[in-house]
């Protein structure tokens, strides 16, 4: 069985085979042979050599949360194999938060400079500023003042200014 997990825009390819309580997990050309029990739903106790891995896992569709050694990782199970998706990069103008647009400081066609505040989003009484990631021209503004906005929605689209040749 092949499974792919994505975490922080990195994709991990795993193969796992099972024989009763024994699991053979192949990752990065290593084979880990483990014995595992689910003590209660989501609570795993895994024996790897003389080490015990204890963890708690929750699932919601393809999303997984893994609690291990006091740390928690948010992971997505994906169908694609071997592909890497890039996450937020320079120029990403998605909203970092779900909230309400309280101010739109620009309009279509405006020329903006890197660092200019384009939009202000309020959530839980805090303000989040959407700034221009580079010099450019506003192509499209997707929200108006008082609109609700969800995390990950694109706020503003900018055409990047071409570098002078």
């Amino acid at each position, binding site marked *: *069985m092949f*499974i792919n*997990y994505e*975490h*922080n825009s*990195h994709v*991990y390819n*795993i193969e*796992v*085979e*099972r024989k009763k309580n024994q*699991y053979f*997990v192949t*990752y990065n050309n290593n084979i*880990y042979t*483990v014995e*595992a029990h*689910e003590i209660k*739903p*989501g609570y*795993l106790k*895994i024996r*790897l050599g003389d080490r015990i*891995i204890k*963890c*708690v*896992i*929750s*699932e*919601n569709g393809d999303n*997984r*949360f*893994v*609690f*291990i*050694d*006091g*740390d*928690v*990782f*948010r*992971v997505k*199970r994906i169908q694609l194999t071997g592909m890497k998706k890039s996450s937020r990069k320079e120029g990403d103008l998605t909203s*970092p*938060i*779900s*909230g309400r647009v*309280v*101010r739109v400081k620009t309009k279509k066609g405006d020329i903006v400079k890197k660092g200019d505040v384009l939009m*202000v989003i*309020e*959530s*839980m*009484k*805090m*303000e*989040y*500023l959407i700034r221009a990631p580079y010099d450019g021209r506003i192509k499209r503004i997707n929200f108006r003042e008082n609109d609700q906005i969800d*995390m990950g929605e694109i706020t503003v689209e900018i055409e990047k200014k071409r570098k002078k040749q």
Partner: protein
Amino acid sequence: MKLFSKVLIANRGEIAVRIIKACQEMRIKTVAVYSDVDSKAPHVQIADETVNLGDPTPSESYLNISKIIDAAESVGAEAIHPGYGFLAENPDFAQACEDSGIKFIGAKPEVIALMGDKIKAKKTMEKADVPVIPGYHGLRQDISTLVKEGKKIGFPLLVKATAGGGGKGMKIVHSEEYLEEAIESAKREAKSAFGNDSIFLEKYLDRPRHIEFQILADEHGNIVHLFERECSIQRRHQKIIEETPSPVMTPELRDRMGRAAVAAAKAVGYTNAGTIEFMVDGDLNFYFMEMNTRLQVEHPITEATTGIDIAKWQLRIAAGMELTLKQHELTQRGHAIECRIYAEDPSNGFLPSIGVLEKIEVPTGPNIRNDTGVETGMEITSYYDPLLSKLIVYGENRDDAIDKMIWALSRYVVLGVTTNIPFLRKVLEHKAFRKGDITTHFIENHFKNWTLSKDGLPVDALIALAVYDSMHPGREEVVRYKEADPHSPWRHAGRWRIGV
């Protein structure tokens, strides 16, 4: 003197739960209020009676004075406990209670108003010989005056909402070029959060610590302090770890600051529980910063080290009872630490994280207290503050308390939203924290651009995931758990897989 027979709690979350339990132990009936999104919240489940406030927007529910007064009248509540946040420091609300013949469990409206106006508060303290920080607290609030006064005080400079608290409407300005933008933004935040855009400017201290003193004052002129709390560990000007005693405190300084705190409370005729916040600089000079005229988020650490139940004393004081605690009989013993568990992502600028709490397991054990207002299945929305719970530990000394907190944090399971738990643990494990070498800049200095794992997903987590998904291959068979009762209001039960 008789206690109230019924109290309405005008709040939600962990503080509503904590107050409801205090009332119930004293055989006082409790009334919870709730907005539509909170209908299944723990504070609603445990209260004796409940009143729905409707729309979850704060101004339509927990901030709506007339709705709350109406609720109290409709159920015959004799008193209202406001908790912290929301209407706790709103003098109009305290006045509205008084006007309706309902006892407001807190300070008098005029005292709240005075201390809520940070400018007048400082002037009052100056008169009472309590030292204050240099700054501009003037009434002229036009941008150009504020910019001019800011430049006069110099940088770094603090811009803060006059009516504020909790980091809202607060900015630090490190150089002149950002001053104007910061003032404008602070004014907007202040307006939105408090309905008042007045701000003040203040000198930003070197190696500053935030140390506060808990006060209890009855309505017969008796005032005691319950010693200090060290609240220097903050992110975005919001406390996240508090402890008592302060690692920097000496008996002599404690005595002086305690007396200043009592003098400050006396100067304004303070009643009920309150907190005097001081800034303490690298040379242990202390300055009055503000007074919080309410129960403080971090009150449990004082309870752990003094053995006093502050919430219960609030109820007794409001009922007109006399404070039987004497200053010389109060003792501070051992060491207590509180960590605030937020649904937020420390590796993404501490932005709030929303979603359904898929699984929660809280650490338990001797001297571990978990004040919580959430449970598995609840949804964390963006309507309210993302505080999930407060974890409080007590130990014989600071080292024991730190060890216990590290143990507890590393066993605190919250799945479904991102929390600051792993981050808090890293702070507790930091050498400088262990040494007590902390200032309000601690997070900025030691945890800038912190992320949980620089090396990606640990192999153990990958193995666990693969094993888990291999144990549960039957994705097609997955059904969402659903009550047989189609009218059941229960939601977010998580998933249950059905076998043969």
